[in-house]
Every structure is written in C-alpha cells, then in structure tokens.
C-alpha cells in the first residue's frame, strides 16, 4: 500500500510540474484560486441576508430558534409577515420614504446643477470666494451641526413635517462641487453659440448644460437617494409623529419593541430590505458607476 502511494506521488509531482510549465495552465490555476477566495467572501456577504430570510419564514423562530443555524425554514409560513404588516403601518412608512427621497433628490439635482453651472461658466464678482466658502461644508460633519439644526426646526415650527426631512438636503456643497467640475468640461463654444442666438442663461442651462450632465446627475441621484432613504439620526431628532416615520426610521423604532419575537423582527427587516435589493439588481451597474465616479458612498 505504502509503496504504491509513494509511486503515485512520485508520478504526480513531475506530472504537476509538467502541467504548470505551461504558462496557460499557471494562469488557469491562478484564476481558480482567486475565484475560490472571492466566492468564500461572497458567501459571507450573502449568508446573513439568507439566514434572515429563512428565519423570517419560520413561525417557530418566535418561540425557539434552532441551535444549528438553518438556511431553509423547517416550518415555512408567512405568519411573521402578516404580523409585521398588521403591527406596523409599513405601507405608510414606505410612502413617507418615497416622498422624502424623491423630493429631496429632485431638489438636490436641480439646485446643485444650477449653482454648479454658475460656478463653472458664470462671470460675477466674488465667484471664487463664494465657492471656497461653499467647500467648507465638506469639512463640517452633519453631526456637529445637528443640535442647532434641531433647535432651528423647532423655532420654525417645522418639526414633525416632511419639510423638516427634505428642506435641509435640497442643495449641498458636495453636489455643487461635483456639478461644477463636470460642467467645466463642457466646451465654452457650445454655450457661447447659444448666447449669440439670444438664449437666456436659464434656457442654456435646461437645453444645453443639463442634457450633457447625465452621468454626473445619475451619480448624484444614487448618492442623494441612499443618504435620504437610509438616514436615521435626523428623523430621530425632528420626527416624533408615527405617521411621518420613514421605513428606515420606523424599522429602527420598531426593533426596540419587537426584539423578543425573532421571526417577526426579521420579517420586518426583510420587508425594509428586499424591495431595495430587487431595485439594486436592476440598477447596480449605475449605482456602482456612480460611486466610482464620485468616490462617495451612501
């Protein structure tokens, strides 16, 4: 036995060496190793989500969790989802998230590009000073400003309103900066030609500048949508009316009361996560391109 094993290894080593002497085979082996490493990482990325789904479809998970984690419910049922939907006005939360995200993103796109156009192509006194002032925003984290912002909202009687969730975010230093960089690359001749034809600056902005800004606007859409949809600290400060909760904030507040019912809690988070994931499957190319363009994340 031992000798035959020795013979086979003795044959294997030169055989392997021979196989590896081909440059193409070395590359193939390299690809296989990298693929395996990437696949292990990918499983680690997916596993918590899959486990969440499996548990959310298990009614018994509320009473006792299996000691060995399962990735398929032993007693498939939609019970937890029914409870989650009757417990919380999740449709309302979603609607609120949509209103807040769409409104603030539209504002962010419009004002960032309009101001960005002025800084890229306009000629006016104080332009560079104003631009530098605007750039200081990038150095001041939101958390440092949040207390006076909260007090301001109280004084303006805007707490517990959509306006509180939208207004502070409809323009920003980062968006303006990105749009200015992008618009600067548009040739002046294009804009001058329109001016000679008597077009107003606003017409030039809507007819010439905006149509050329597709990739930058797409990137800003992604960022603004992710920021607003996932924000929790600002709603925590300015929203106490349950009918104004966003889905992210509603999930955060619910997790405090539902914690003991594992199945229901995970069904609630699945409801909050899954529609975004499905959207991501279709939009991932644009989202990833947008992040790579700006270097910023949600």
């Amino acid at each position: 036995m031992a000798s035959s094993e020795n013979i086979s290894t003795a044959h294997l080593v030169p055989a392997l060496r021979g196989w590896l002497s081909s440059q193409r085979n070395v590359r193939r082996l390299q690809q296989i190793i990298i693929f395996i490493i990437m696949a292990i990482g990918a499983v680690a990325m997916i596993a918590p989500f899959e486990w969440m789904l499996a548990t959310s479809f298990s009614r018994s998970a509320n009473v006792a969790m299996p000691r060995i984690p399962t990735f398929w419910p032993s007693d498939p049922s939609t019970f937890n989802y029914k409870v989650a939907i009757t417990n919380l006005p999740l449709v309302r939360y979603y609607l609120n998230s949509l209103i807040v995200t769409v409104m603030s993103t539209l504002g962010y796109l419009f004002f960032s590009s309009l101001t960005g156009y002025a800084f890229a192509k306009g000629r006016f006194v104080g332009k560079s000073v104003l631009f530098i002032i605007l750039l200081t925003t990038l150095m001041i984290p939101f958390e440092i400003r949040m207390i006076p912002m909260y007090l301001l909202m109280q004084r303006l009687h805007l707490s517990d309103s959509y306006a509180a969730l939208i207004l502070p975010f409809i323009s920003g230093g980062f968006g303006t900066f990105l749009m200015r960089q992008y618009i600067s690359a548009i040739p002046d001749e294009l804009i001058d030609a329109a001016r000679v034809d008597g077009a107003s600056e606003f017409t030039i902005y809507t007819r010439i500048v905006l149509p050329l800004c597709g990739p930058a606007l797409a990137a800003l859409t992604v960022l603004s949508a992710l920021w607003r949809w996932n924000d929790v600290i600002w709603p925590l400060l300015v929203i106490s009316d349950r009918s104004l909760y966003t889905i992210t904030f509603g999930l955060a507040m619910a997790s405090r009361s539902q914690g003991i019912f594992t199945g229901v809690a995970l069904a609630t988070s699945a409801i909050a996560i899954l529609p975004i994931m499905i959207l991501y499957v279709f939009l991932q190319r644009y989202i990833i391109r947008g992040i790579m363009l700006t270097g910023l994340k949600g």
Partner: protein
Amino acid sequence: MLRKLRKSLIWYVFVAPTFILYALFVAYPTFETFRLSFFQEVATRQEFVGALHYIRLLGNQVFLAALLNTAFLGIVFLLIIVPLSLVMASLLNNLHVWPNFFKAIYFLPQITSTVAVALVFSYVFQPNWGLVNGILRELGVAPLPLWLAEPRYVLTGSRAAVTILAVWVALGYYMLIFQAGLQAVPAELYDAAVVDGAGPLQTWWLITIPSLRPTFIFLFITGTIDAMSRFSDLWMLGGPAGTPARSLQTIVMYMYQTAFESNDFNLASASGVILFIVVLILTLINFRSFLQREFSSQSGA
C-alpha cells in the same frame, strides 16, 4: 454698465438658493454650536460661562471613555479594512470570471440601510443560537463567545462584533474605491517593471501600492471622518448609552444622550466642538503625513 450688472445678476440668482440653504443649515448651525458651548441655560436665559463646559467634559469619565472608544474602534477598523480591501481589490482586478458579479455582491451591504443591517447582526451575534455561534459550535468551539454581551476589550467581545459588522458593511465600498485607483495606474509603469524583470508580487509592492497614494489619502480622510462620527449601527445595537457597559458608546452617541436625554444642549454642543476639532486635526495629520512621504520619496529618488 447697467447691462453688465444685469448680466451678472442672473448668476447671483443661480447661486442664491444654495447659499440661503448654506446659511441656514451649515453656517448658522456651526456657528451656533460654538456659541452654545460657551453658554449655560439659567432659568430660560442663556448666560455666558466661558470654558466651563469644556472643563466639565475633560473631567467627565463618560465623555472621555466615549472619545477614546470612538478612536479605538476607528483605528482598529481602518487597520483591518484598508489592507484587506486592497488585497481583495487587487485579486478581483485579476479575475476574468464574473468580476462584475462579485463587485455587485460585495457592495450589497452598502445599499442596505445601516439600521436594517445592524438589526440583522444583533441576531447574527446572538450567543445561543445566532448564525456566528451556531457555526462555531458546529466547528467544536467551546466555550462560545458572548459577542455583544461582553463589554471587555477581548477578541470576542462587543467591540470585536461591531468591528466585524463594520468591515462586512464597508468591504465592498473600499474595494470599489481601490479598484478605481488600480485602473488609474499607468500601464507603462507595469511594462517597465516587467522589462526590469520584476515578479508579480514585487510589481504589486513596488509599483501598484505607491501609485495608489491618492486613493489611500482619500480613504484615510473619509474613513477617519466616518469613524469619528459613527452613530447609527452602534445606536441600534446598544442604544444611546452603547450597552453593554458603554463599551459601544461613541462621541456622537454621547452628544445625543446629553442633548436629548439630559436636555443639556450646551454641554452637548461643547462635545460637538471637540468632535469638530478632533476631525480637523486628524484630517490635517492624514494630509501632512502623506504629503511628507511624497516629498521625501521624491528627494530620495
């Protein structure tokens, strides 16, 4: 003259909305945070008290612990995520099978809200039946780690659990930024290295990594700011006090607790100013150390 003024007027109209919002939500609140930190509310009236709140903070064990904790969690996170994501991005950059599929999968936690991810992880790290300990038990590990119930500085405690969470969430994003940097490395540099007879590892160490300097600066600066203002995930897992035993409390959580649970807006503002100064100093240090290295390597060459 009037015509010229009218012509530039339109530009002021274009920048006005952004600057009105800037004044209301950036300039005024920043100034107000500084102002509030020097005042004290005495019977509905604000009274100037000088540096009183700063003295109170520097003698406050809870605040100092939160500050230290934020820095500790941030440093450990960056020390793990930067090398890990660089290696993973370099590997993925050489993979010809499904590279975009993997990119999309690794990025998945980034589009999911921090709140939802933290909620799922509070169950993933459950000591008796959570996903992590369930797998560890199958592998024969005993005794099983306590994770989020263990406040001490150990490799299986609450700080380790939230660091694993943060790395899991951020990996795809850091890889993406590194990949963008890798694609910007000029191909001639690689060609020159091959001509000089450098192996793949040598090329990576001597050509790729030094060429990624702008990416490192960007990630260290944004990573530091993000880490210093960490809030949502730890608030979800440990409440504003960073339970257990304040092991998860960060400086922003302390700020939130002081302002909205103790109703001390002035003290909270002072802690906000300290956060601002720390962020500023760290950003400058990051800038300087990277720039210095750039100068020394240039003069050395």
